[in-house]
């Protein structure tokens, strides 16, 4: 399935505009994300980071714009895309097990009437093992910790064997160990040639995690290689006055609070 197209562009967005009650949430987004990168989407609250992902996935109606996945329209490439929504977007008190949630990732492939069988169960177990959650397969999802729930969501996307993964704040509200584990998995995927597009909120780790970056605040502020894009000028433009405190570039680039490997 993983046939990178000739241009090397995983995702290309043209003139994407999204509005909510007459208020533009995303304005004229033009963007090309190359194949095989771990791309971060960074911006202040209300910048439209999650909305961007959701509009690409067709979950939010758009006013205008075209989205191409490996050169073809999204609707035709659905099977090549995996999505990890925000953990808080579902009710974890649903009566089901971790394994069952992961199996849900295969429902699209199964078609209308076919039920998941032994093969699907095995695939789901493999995906759980990949996120080191194999021992929790039969655990009620309400009894999982936040970090474990996030891993289950990740496994549910992994089982789809997609080429592009959209992740909405996968590191929100998880402890440092889980964050490291998630990042390791994402890096492994990238090294296999997958494209990862991650909404991220922690500026301190941007440089360590991502090799490609989109700074977003309703419009595209800057995009490209992380090392070129993650500059103090661009951050000022994206965050406005809020970033003024972070004058010291070094404090931004080499955060003291996190252990850099």
């Amino acid at each position, binding site marked *: 399935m993983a046939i990178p197209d000739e241009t090397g562009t995983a995702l290309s967005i043209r003139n994407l505009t999204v509005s909510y009650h007459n208020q533009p949430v995303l304005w004229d987004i033009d963007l090309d994300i190359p194949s095989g990168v771990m791309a971060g989407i960074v911006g202040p609250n209300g910048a439209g980071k999650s909305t961007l992902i*959701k509009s690409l*996935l*067709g*979950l939010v109606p758009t006013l205008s714009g075209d989205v191409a996945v490996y050169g073809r329209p999204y609707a035709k490439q*659905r099977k090549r*895309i995996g*999505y990890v*929504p925000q953990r808080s*977007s*579902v*009710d974890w008190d*649903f*009566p*089901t*097990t971790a394994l*069952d*949630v992961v199996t*849900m*990732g295969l*429902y*699209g492939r*199964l078609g*209308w*009437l076919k*039920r*998941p069988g032994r093969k699907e169960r095995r695939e789901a177990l493999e995906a759980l093992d990949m996120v080191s959650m194999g021992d929790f397969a039969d655990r*009620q999802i309400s009894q999982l910790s936040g970090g474990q729930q996030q891993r289950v969501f990740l496994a*549910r996307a992994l089982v789809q064997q997609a080429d592009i993964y959209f992740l909405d704040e996968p590191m929100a509200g998880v402890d440092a160990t889980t964050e490291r584990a998630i990042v390791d998995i994402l890096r492994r995927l990238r090294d296999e040639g997958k494209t990862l597009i991650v909404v991220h909120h922690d500026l301190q780790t941007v440089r360590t995690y991502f090799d490609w970056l989109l700074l977003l605040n309703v419009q595209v502020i800057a995009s490209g290689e992380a090392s070129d894009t993650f500059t103090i000028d661009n951050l000022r433009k994206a965050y406005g006055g809020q970033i003024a405190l972070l004058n010291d570039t070094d404090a931004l680039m080499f955060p003291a609070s996190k252990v850099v490997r």
Partner: protein
Amino acid sequence: MQWSLLLNDYTFQNVIVGASLLGMISGALGTFAVLRRQSLLGDAISHAALPGICLGFIISGGRSMGSIMLGALTTGALAALVMLALTRMSRLKTDAALGICLSVFFAVGIVLLTYLQGTNNASQGGLEAFLFGQAAATLRSDLWLMGSITLGALLLLAALWKQAKLVTFDAEYARTLGIPATFIEALLTVMVTLAVVVGLQMVGVVLMAAMIVAPAAAARQWSRHLGSMVVLAAGFGVVSGITGATISTLSRGLATGPLIILTASAIVIVSLAIAPQRGLLWGVLKHYRQKWTLHKQQMLYTMYKWQLANASSHTRSQAQGLLWPRLALLRLYREGFLAREHSDRSYSGWSLTKSGITEAQRLTAVLEGKIQ
């Protein structure tokens, strides 16, 4: 003897079968309504069935169950769809949209009902029975209708099982997989109307909401999977239906519908109280058990540290007067972690036994491992 007479009674048979069918369908479909946080949707739909009942009567010109059910189905589904559209397209929140739908449709229903009563049409008599149900009036032909609706709804649910499950758990994700989530959501909502229609004759439009919510709420307490929750909810529905109908028949003159609802509510209360893991009682017990374990561990830890610090083999209990520490000491003594010390025939305190020391060292290791 009385039981065999009862079981051969035509009315009783009808009521039992009808109540079971109602329990089955409302339990199964109610599960999805409850998990989708649309418990009150059943309330709006059932109230909205009233204008449909009256319209069905007007159009068919008589009290034919088929047209009445069809009418109820139409207005009930219409109310559900209006409600979905209101929440999606306007800024109204779900509760407000629900309230509006419920009262507007019910008001129209009452207006139509009083209009019909004013026309002096003899056959309209008893139309108001659909407000609170009139189980005893159930006919065999009604049962066939109710049975086919129940069977149809359950088959549809079984066929679209995985879509229904995924959409209920995570509708947005379902959409990214290419599952028509909006359609499935609308279908699950409209199917609640089918349950309402089956319940018209048994419990009536006013109390129907409880039949949607109660069995599902009780079943949630006992189940770990969606499948078992649906089966259990249907089972609870059947049990409340049969129990309510039996009590009503034996007691002569007590209304069947409300008794069914009360039985279902009793099941809910018991489930909320004693269900393992999720029940209140379970929670309280667990809390106290954990507290007690912690108490003992803390006692052991403290004594161990004290012995280390004082290089003495035994300690005098400092907590003679307090109940909990003394209980903890006694329990530790019985478990063989402590020994009583006697010197000069007088009681002098407690000392850790060998296994007590080992246990204390284990605890210390765990504790310090966690702290550092």
